[in-house]
């Protein structure tokens, strides 16, 4: 816990200063989680503010301060899920609008501006985003929380209020789909490489 239970209880009574302290303590962590869940830096802060807004109006429903962190995670997951669902179509059309040449040109131009590390990080983000797009928004969030955020099954159980076995099955299936996407992507890349070599 990043704050003590007393502070959360004070925030629950409507004390603005206490709520401010809670936000200050958790905002960095929440921003990080959202950044990895939605992978759109320009919208991270907006979604994080939505999370704290929901927290403010639902804090009185929290029965015990001990479950505050899973509660905040649940609010984060719900806000990220709403965002992903709303923006899915827009993201798909944006990707399909770009031809391969345009993508290569943008890569080359970007390459001149940013340094090697930043370029590599961008590649990693794009690759993992592409792999995660093979699964539903709900599975993407679950996988990110488990594999990227490093949450345990016990913690996920508290967040999702689902038993461990159900989570294991869901994670396994999501992982299989991502592995398939990874395999297909590698094959495609190899195919393109061969075609280019032949030309």
């Amino acid at each position, binding site marked *: 816990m990043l704050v003590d239970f007393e502070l959360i209880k004070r925030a629950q009574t409507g004390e603005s200063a206490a709520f*401010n302290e809670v*936000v200050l303590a958790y905002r960095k962590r929440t921003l990080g989680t959202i950044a990895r869940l939605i992978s759109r830096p320009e919208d991270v802060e907006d979604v*994080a503010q939505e999370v704290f*807004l929901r927290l403010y109006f639902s804090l009185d429903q929290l029965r015990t301060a001990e479950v505050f962190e899973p509660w905040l995670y649940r609010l984060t997951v719900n806000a990220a899920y709403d965002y992903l669902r709303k923006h899915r179509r827009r993201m798909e059309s944006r990707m399909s609008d770009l031809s391969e040449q345009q993508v290569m040109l943008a890569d080359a131009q970007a390459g001149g501006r940013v340094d090697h590390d930043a370029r590599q990080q961008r590649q990693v983000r794009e690759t*993992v985003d592409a*792999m995660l797009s093979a699964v539903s928004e709900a599975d993407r969030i679950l996988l990110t929380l488990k594999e990227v955020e*490093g949450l345990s099954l016990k913690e996920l159980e508290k967040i999702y209020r689902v038993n461990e076995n159900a989570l294991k099955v869901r994670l396994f299936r999501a992982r299989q789909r991502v592995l398939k996407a990874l395999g297909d992507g590698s094959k495609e890349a190899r195919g393109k490489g061969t075609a280019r070599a032949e030309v």
Partner: protein
Amino acid sequence: MEWKNRGDENTELDGWFRAYREACPAPEPSANFMPEIWQRIEERQRSVFYLGRWARTFATAAAVLSLAMAAYLYIPHERNSILYVESYVEALAAGHAVDSPDFEPSMDEL
């Protein structure tokens, strides 16, 4: 062979996820982060307040209208009033009085 490949793929995937975590560090919140949250909270509270006020006004108007209708129905009205609408049974009874029966025997029958 299949198992070995799947194991390699799983290791590769774990590597991608680790790299992804490093490639997506937590961004620094902007200076406007807290003021914007409070602004949004106040906006939401204001809209909830107006919605509540509108709902109370609507409920009061509905209650007043119900009372007016109840009072109107409770007060007896005269039959020749323009607001009085006679029922089907009443109209039938008025048109078929006992002293003027529909069936009148003809002279032959008598």
